[in-house]
């Protein structure tokens, strides 16, 4: 009846982009399963799906006590050898009985949480997207976060990332209906997304949410770098040095909608109109490039003059 998920996005803790052949080691979180990769238009690798069992209260806007039992599906992805995402989601359905069944029952339904008792989808979605304080409720985000940690712990990474950055968290809910999408940028690192799509839920919806989270993180990271560069406030070489990681690491990673199923493409186009991700990105990129160009010219003048 309702799908909800949380994507966390951050920078892979390595000084350089990781090599293609290293993805299997870094993302091989399940013995006997290969990491899937695609190389066009950008190197993208995804770990095998991982399950986590839960039995807890579900979020509720009305603070109702709703108990759910089942498993979450999680996976970790690396884009461009640079950006790491941990993503978890769950399909919430009404259980057939009001008591907990043997665990094997839930294991036979991976990615499904069954509600014991009554539940309303809007109440659940409202509670989930509210980003309440962490507590006894289902915590998809920390599961996503945990799998990111596992990846970052890989012995292959040198932990010398080109710049410090915060992980962003995107919570999303998806339902079947007339296609629509609503994205809200929170004050801190939290973002929410409500989307409705035609037909049954498919993992393509998760791909869309991950792609959106990825580009939102890119934009956030670039904005932070530009703000910190203190253009106009600091000296030219300082500004250039502070902008350099953005050019080295981020600018070439912008490819919105590259892996999105065609049926969901219109939703991305909606987001491009409002809030207009690519517009903001373009103007930031131009600002960075202009600054670097101006600073280089100034430097040349100084050395020549």
């Amino acid at each position, binding site marked *: 009846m309702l799908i909800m998920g949380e994507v966390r996005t*951050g*920078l892979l*803790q390595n000084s350089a982009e990781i090599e293609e052949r290293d993805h299997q080691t870094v993302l091989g979180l399940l013995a006997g399963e290969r990491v899937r990769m695609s190389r066009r238009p950008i190197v993208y690798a995804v770990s095998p799906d991982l399950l986590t069992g839960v039995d807890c209260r579900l979020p509720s806007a009305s603070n109702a006590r709703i108990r759910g039992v089942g498993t979450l599906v999680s996976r970790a992805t690396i884009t461009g050898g640079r950006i790491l995402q941990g993503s978890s989601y769950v399909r919430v359905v009404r259980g057939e009985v009001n008591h907990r069944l043997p665990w094997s029952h839930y294991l036979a339904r991976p990615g499904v949480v069954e509600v014991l008792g009554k539940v309303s989808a809007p109440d659940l979605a409202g509670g989930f997207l509210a980003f309440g*304080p*962490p507590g006894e409720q289902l*915590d998809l985000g*920390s599961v996503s*976060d*945990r799998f990111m*940690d596992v990846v*970052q*712990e890989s012995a292959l990474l*040198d*932990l*010398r*990332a080109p710049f*410090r*950055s*915060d*992980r962003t968290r995107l919570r999303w809910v998806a339902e079947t209906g007339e296609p629509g999408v609503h994205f809200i940028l929170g004050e801190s690192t939290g973002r929410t997304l409500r989307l409705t799509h035609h037909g049954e839920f498919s993992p393509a919806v998760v791909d869309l949410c991950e792609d959106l989270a990825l580009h939102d993180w890119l934009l956030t990271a670039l904005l932070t770098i530009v703000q*910190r560069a*203190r253009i106009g*406030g*600091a000296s030219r070489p300082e500004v250039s040095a502070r902008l350099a990681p953005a050019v080295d690491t981020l600018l070439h990673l912008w490819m919105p909608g590259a892996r999105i199923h065609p049926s969901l493409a219109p939703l991305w186009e909606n987001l491009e109109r409002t809030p207009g991700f690519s517009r903001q990105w373009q103007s930031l990129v131009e600002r960075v490039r202009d600054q670097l160009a101006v600073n280089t010219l100034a430097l040349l003048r100084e050395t020549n003059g």
Partner: protein
Amino acid sequence: MLVFAISDKGGTGRSVTSSNIVYRRALQGQDVCYLDFDFGSPTVGAIFRVSTASRGTTRGGMHRYLQGEITEPSRIDVWTESDRDTIRAKPAGAGQMVLLPGDQGGGEFATFDAEMLKRCVRLFAKLHEQFDLIMVDLSAGRSFAAHLALAATAQLPKIPARWLVFHRWTRQHIIAANGLVKGEHGLLDVGREYGHDPGALTDRIRFVRTAVLELGSGDFAHLRPAQRSWLNEIDRELRELATRNGVGLTTMLGKVPLDPVLQWREQLISDEDVAGTEIANAETVFAFDDLAKKIVDDTAWEGL
């Protein structure tokens, strides 16, 4: 970078100095965080003037995180949550300044287990992703907090870690500071137990003298000649003692002058406190600023 602040005795000004170092580093444009590992007395919120955490947080802090009760310890953005207006006015170009407080009513740990160590390692690794400087304020003396820090850093060889040992300029403090590092069950001893190379660990330890009276300064103008010569004699003895104890100038990262403000109230010293209200001394801020730079300056940490 992980920086551990430790002292053998209480009352050295460890917390207030390390808090000010963090504050100065943030003003210098770095992203910093401050972890309260003084488990028996989680009161660092008071220094940052964050009233919601002046005696530890009620929203899930370091104690509950390390014990596995919560998945993430709560964070406080000092720039927005401090009660002091001068702190809330975040200057342009300043970095993040985040406090990770202990739990209200939290106590010193009696021991730590493998799970707790894993959680500690994970927390350090995750903070390293986000912050340039991670200041960890440890309980005074030989504590489980120090054990935990040594065990965790042994598992994170790729993350640079440095240790600051705070002591006052007295006979007892100098001997105690040396004992904390080199004595039985001291940092080197325990570090070796967890797999640290004693030589490498020694290179990562520096001393910070606190509440120092500068004999040449104007503060001493009013002293009688007998007092002045006595103080000079004592200072010479202390310097000798310090050198014998490996706490001399070569291993000293910096010193913080005695400042009346810090004697009566442990607080962040803003530029306003010096230039505006003039309640604090410029030398104090200079010392903090200097320490904040030296902490990350590799030349100050070259092998001895």
